[in-house]
């Protein structure tokens, strides 16, 4: 099956005092039609930038310096202004972490959705309004007729995020880019929004690229996961494979750091990851995770960060593979700590 979205060799740079700073280097991922792919990493990993590059929304002074981004076989990076606008309008939609600042505070909800329908789908005023209410209903907003007339500040965070989703999916895009959509929401609302995204996927076959720092969120909704660290993809694979058989030391360390509900009542001590991620200005030879890796070998200083296959669909950038055969699932390890 051809991928709906294919990113390869992506390199994003920012202008620095002493030359360009590389924020994303050689990143690649693919999203199949109807697939939910999670992009996980901690802050500074470049996951947000990678996601935004798909819509070509990298803020200046950043820029895509190299790489390919293909949507349904079309070269996104080569699109002209009009083609790009069409792409953004019809093929891909994006939602962000903070729904409040993504909605215009002085326009009613209905108007904001109707506007996109008029401009992007060419609907007339009355039709757009009616459809806007339909869309609000479709994302689970109760009493949509009345709520459509609200202003953003009159809605709760969860509602605003639903409005964002309605707005982003109004023209039935085949791909939804979600940049930390539930980070600012509390856990019950988060569960609802994630359920909504899964429902839209089931109903429309819409693919989702979900960026998050939260493994819990990723493991609940994603089919496949891409793990990023310091601008590189370090591991990618089906969620089961990563959860039970993560091969990259960073992925394992990350999984080990995640607090578990099951630890209640037990004194747990998690190691975290010693050290700090590298600065943008630091250019590290070989593996970028090496300074912090418990399993580092001398040879790690000269490897490239290229992904190598582990099994079907599962790849890692670590040639050392210190974990052969051991289980990485968090629940299995919680009892081992003390």
């Amino acid at each position: 099956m051809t991928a709906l979205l294919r990113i390869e060799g992506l390199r994003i740079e920012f202008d620095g005092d002493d030359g360009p700073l590389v924020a994303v280097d050689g990143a690649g991922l693919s999203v199949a039609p109807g697939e939910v792919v999670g992009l996980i990493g901690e802050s500074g990993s470049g996951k947000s930038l990678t996601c935004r590059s798909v819509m070509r929304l990298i803020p200046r002074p950043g820029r895509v310096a190299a790489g390919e981004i293909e949507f349904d076989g079309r070269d996104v990076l080569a699109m002209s202004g009009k083609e790009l606008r069409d792409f953004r309008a019809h093929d891909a939609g994006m939602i962000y972490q903070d729904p409040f600042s993504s909605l215009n505070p002085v326009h009613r909800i209905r108007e904001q959705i109707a506007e996109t329908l008029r401009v992007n789908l060419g609907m007339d005023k009355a039709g757009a309004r009616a459809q806007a209410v339909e869309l609000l209903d479709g994302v689970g907003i109760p009493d949509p007729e009345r709520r459509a007339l609200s202003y953003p500040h009159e809605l709760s965070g969860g509602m605003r995020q639903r409005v964002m989703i309605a707005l982003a999916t109004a023209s039935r895009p085949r791909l939804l880019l979600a940049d930390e959509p539930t980070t600012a929401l509390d856990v019950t609302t988060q569960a609802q929004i994630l359920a909504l995204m899964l429902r839209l996927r089931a109903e429309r076959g819409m693919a989702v690229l979900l960026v998050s720092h939260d493994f819990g969120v990723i493991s609940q909704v994603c089919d496949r996961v891409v793990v990023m660290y310091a601008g590189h993809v370090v591991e990618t694979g089906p969620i089961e494979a990563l959860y039970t058989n993560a091969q990259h030391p960073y992925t394992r360390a990350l999984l080990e750091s995640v607090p578990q509900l099951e630890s209640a009542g037990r004194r747990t001590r998690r190691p975290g990851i010693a050290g700090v991620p590298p600065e943008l200005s630091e250019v590290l030879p070989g593996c970028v995770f090496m300074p912090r890796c418990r399993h580092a070998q001398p040879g790690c200083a000269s490897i490239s960060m290229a992904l190598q296959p582990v099994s079907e669909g599962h790849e890692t950038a670590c040639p050392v593979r210190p974990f052969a055969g051991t289980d990485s699932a968090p629940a299995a390890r919680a009892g081992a700590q003390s």
Partner: protein
Amino acid sequence: MTELLRVQGVVKEFGLRRTVAERVTRNAPEPYRAVDDVSFTLRRGEILGLAGGSGSGKTTLARCIVRLIEPDAGTVELDGVDVRAAGGRELRELRRRMQMVFQDPYASLNPRMTVATALLEVGSVHQRPGAENGEQFVREALERVHLGPGIAKRRPRELSGGQRQRVAIARALAAGPEVLIADEPVSALDVSVQAQLLNLFGDLRDDLGVAILFVAHQLAVIAEVADRVAVMNRGRLVEVGETAAVFGNPQDEYTKALLAAHPHPRLSRAAS
């Protein structure tokens, strides 16, 4: 007495703005109760988690305890001393004994002060023993939070999020408190850094004997760090108990809803 901090019937109301019609007819809407008759105790040497979603009132409650916000009703007693009735010097001393750590590592340190200056200031204002020897005071303060002395000369903008949060904790500890009130102290940190900070809180309880009120919205975090947990919903305390008991066998509907909403890995499925 094992009870160190006793909170009884605390209420905090925020008046809603009235519309013109309401003013004219003198029909005030019900004021909004952010904290609604909350009572609990914090025991010596324990970490009590305070859980709840946004709008549950947990941050407001935390601020009411140290009187950053003035409660409208109820009592707060630290080791038997009435916090609400205290004023001036007495209040300052009480505050010294109940220190607060805030959520946002960026904004909880004065951007224009070096770490050393901030720590020394605590020592001198409260006349802590050992504060006369500035360098040593600062070094010991940093050691408590596992930071090296090199951090002392830096300003907040030169520190990472985890380091800033540790400095904020060091600053609180420099006052020699018996209680630490931590308001979402790890929510703004990456998971790998968060894990280390949670270890630190455990160490503070074990090694320094500090009692900690740990406010958080992530249940898993509370599960890992808290001995007991109190769950809040819309200003009310709905459930209190040992963490394992509350999370394993929740009694209140809201607690059950929170636990059900917690993301669970769905590992056994094919991409559909």
